[in-house]
């Protein structure tokens, strides 16, 4: 190996290290794809597809409860992962959207079928956006 090649390799290594430090320091490094976090959001997405459950209070309550629990799980799991602040912000909002529906059923409030269907639609929109970007995150 010539001295020139050696210098070049050292130069590249230093450049890569510098890039890594800059990216992580400036918050420009995306979090790695996490199968468990992604799967939990898929659960919410799949449940939110079926707004037919809104016609029955018991079924709607069960679905609302499951969606809230899964969103809460995703937020609690992801919030401390490195460079995962964007995902944590999204799952925190998803948690807030699902909590309201769950709370109304839990408190025994009267919940209209239209409101239930609109909430399911909003949850579906939210999970759709999150899943699309989550799936693009770099793998190990």
């Amino acid at each position, binding site marked *: 190996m010539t001295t020139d090649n050696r210098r070049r390799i050292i130069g590249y290594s230093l450049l890569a290290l510098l890039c890594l430090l800059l990216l992580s320091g400036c918050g420009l*490094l995306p979090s790695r794809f996490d199968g468990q976090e992604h799967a939990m959001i898929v659960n919410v997405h799949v449940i939110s597809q079926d707004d037919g459950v809104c016609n029955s209070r018991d079924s709607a309550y069960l679905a609302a409860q499951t969606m809230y629990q899964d969103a809460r799980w995703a937020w609690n799991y992801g919030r401390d992962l490195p460079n995962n602040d*964007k995902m944590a912000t*999204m799952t925190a909002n998803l948690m807030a959207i699902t909590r309201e529906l769950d709370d109304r059923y839990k408190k025994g409030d009267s919940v209209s079928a239209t409101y239930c269907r609109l909430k399911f639609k909003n949850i579906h929109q939210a999970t759709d956006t999150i899943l699309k970007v989550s799936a693009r995150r770099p793998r190990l």
Partner: protein
Amino acid sequence: MMNLDQVIHNFMNQPNALGYRVQQAVGYRDAAARGEISQSEYQDLLEDLRRLDDINLSADELDQQIAFNECISALKYIPLP
């Protein structure tokens, strides 16, 4: 001078995410006016729109981070001239 309904109508006709969100909000208002949803349900659905906007914003930022990271990774494999 435009009244509030005209302002909302102008926003609704925008062919972008903002226009779509305003259409959703107007849909909620109509449902509340017809008595299909209660006042508190209406308020919560409006709050959802703000949360959905927050999610979109974070998704865009994460998308940019991913794209930037991909560029840096690709540059590492391109030999210098």
